[in-house]
């Protein structure tokens, strides 16, 4: 080391470096907090005052039509394959009454239960229910154990069995994680006020709305006609209701 006097003392240099380091590391964080606070404006936060749901009129669901399935695949970037290893967030189930032989068909997707078994069993809490009733999978904490698929009474969940490409920016998906209908949460959050399946249904057999708002179209309809929940015996209080079953 040299004995020459340095223009800047070591102490000053260290203090300056520390200040610069703190600025570089903290500033983006502070900036992020500002951004986050801006996004959580009053009135925009997800609230439990709202409960999003669907009412499916089985009588209106037309034989041979699967526009809702195609729309869901388009909206969420699903490939549309039907192998046992392919993801299907919504499917048309063809029904034939065992006694009378009467035929019908109905779309089945995640029923967005108020008491979802998938959320109960998930070891990491990746399966969760948002305050507005939408049941979702956090792709960052899903470890791919598939216990939720064992627990779901509606076979609503799919496991991503292969690497994925060309995903939609709004709908992150990933190999090794479980996924299911998210009630087009990205559309709801940007204020579209509907889901891809409901939008696409040519006969308006799928009605989207707020089950907690007595004035909403879905609530008014539910108060007029007899509706059923799938596997009502389980007491899960589903957000998807059926009429005409």
């Amino acid at each position, binding site marked *: 080391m040299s004995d020459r006097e340095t223009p800047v003392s070591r102490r000053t240099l260290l203090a300056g470096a520390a200040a610069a380091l703190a600025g570089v590391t903290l500033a983006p964080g502070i900036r992020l907090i500002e951004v986050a606070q801006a996004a959580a404006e009053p009135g925009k936060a997800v609230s439990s005052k709202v409960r999003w749901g669907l009412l499916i009129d089985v009588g209106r669901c037309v034989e041979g039509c699967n526009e809702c399935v195609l729309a869901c695949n388009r909206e969420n970037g699903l490939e549309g394959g039907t192998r046992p290893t392919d993801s299907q967030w919504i499917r048309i189930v063809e029904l034939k009454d065992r006694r009378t032989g009467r035929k019908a068909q109905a779309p089945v997707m995640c029923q967005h239960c108020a008491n979802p078994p998938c959320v109960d069993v998930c070891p990491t809490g990746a399966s969760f229910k948002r305050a507005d009733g939408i049941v979702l999978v956090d792709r960052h904490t899903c470890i791919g154990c598939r216990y939720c698929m064992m627990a779901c009474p509606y076979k609503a969940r799919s496991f991503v069995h*292969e690497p994925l490409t060309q995903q939609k920016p709004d709908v992150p998906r990933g190999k090794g994680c*479980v996924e299911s209908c998210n009630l087009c949460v990205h559309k709801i959050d940007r204020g579209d006020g509907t889901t891809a399946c409901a939008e696409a249904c040519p006969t308006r057999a799928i009605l989207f709305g707020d089950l907690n708002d007595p004035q909403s179209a879905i609530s008014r309809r539910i108060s007029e006609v007899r509706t059923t929940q799938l596997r009502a015996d389980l007491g899960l209080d589903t957000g998807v209701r059926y009429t005409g079953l």
Partner: protein
Amino acid sequence: MMAATLPVDRSERRFWWLVAGGGLLLAIGLGAAWYMEHHGHIVTGMSNEVVWGTPHVFAIFLIVAASGVLNIASMASVFGQAHYKPWSRLSGVLSVAMLAGGLMVLMLDLGRPERMVVAATHYNPTSVFAWNVLLYSGMFAAVLVYLWMQLERRMNRYAKAAGVAVLIWRFVLTTGTGLIFAFLVARQAYASAVLPPLFIVMSLAWGMAVFVLARAAVGGETDADLLRRMRNLLGLLVALVLYFMAVYHLTNLYFAKQTAFERFILLDGGAYPWIFWIGYVLIGSIVPMVLVSRATATARTLRVAAALTIVGAFAALYVFIIGGQAFPLEIFPDYEVTSSFRDGAIAAYAPSVPEVLLGLGGVAAAFLISVVGMQVFDIVPARAVEAD
């Protein structure tokens, strides 16, 4: 105990051969897991219908047997059965080894095994899986403490207390494993309160069978009295499993809504009824019971009975786990249903090579830990019986 009483064999050579063999099988299993992780579960026989497959059969066998193999430790340290005393440490090491092997298979089968740490940092208190994370790690701790009390002469006086703790923990752990299935309200095969007791007796019987084989592999003669006790115990425990299995199916048969499922599993479900009746009931239960009940039964007969019990265990778990998922969920009870997602259809499943190799890798891990454990610690009274 003399230093010469090396557990596996006096010859170092044999030990290294065993390590090499186990290591190779483990490496193949890890390779299979990497292959599954790299390509995704598409390379397995599992699907959106059968979401848990062959790896889970291996993992649950290993975990359940890991609890049961401690029968020996409990007999020795809790119930004061002197005949089992020399073998209690071996049972402890086998337990830790099988628990590790089973958990390894479960973790490597995850869709995102690299996120295992998430299971520790994000804990959902309502999940039975999450409870089991605690139960399994607690089991490790309890058995390791028990082994310490056994191996360290100064701590011997606490061995009984540790043994009692282990015994209680075993029951809670196998209850927890049974509850993984018992809480699945939606599935015909699983939502039953009989499952936790069934899993408890399964663990007792299957762990006993593993111990009989491990003890025989270690070598040395066993005194006739211990042999007789082990024979009686194995026979009794296999009978108990059969009894609880019968209760499980009979209660299901009583419920009208479950009869279609029972018909599938017991009568017309393709391979599953065969595996159940021939694999589990006949080969895995009745034959071992007959073998051990004969007055002329020898050490060799006991070994055969134990091996068949393990064959039966795999048959029972295969039918329970995979057959149980193959039967379709009943979402619309009054309707015949069809869909692109195979609603109402029996799911197809065939075990794939990587799955089987991963499962065998778990067995290899258990084997390796056991062999190394026996070599490093003075836990096996090899030739002890002769010396006495």
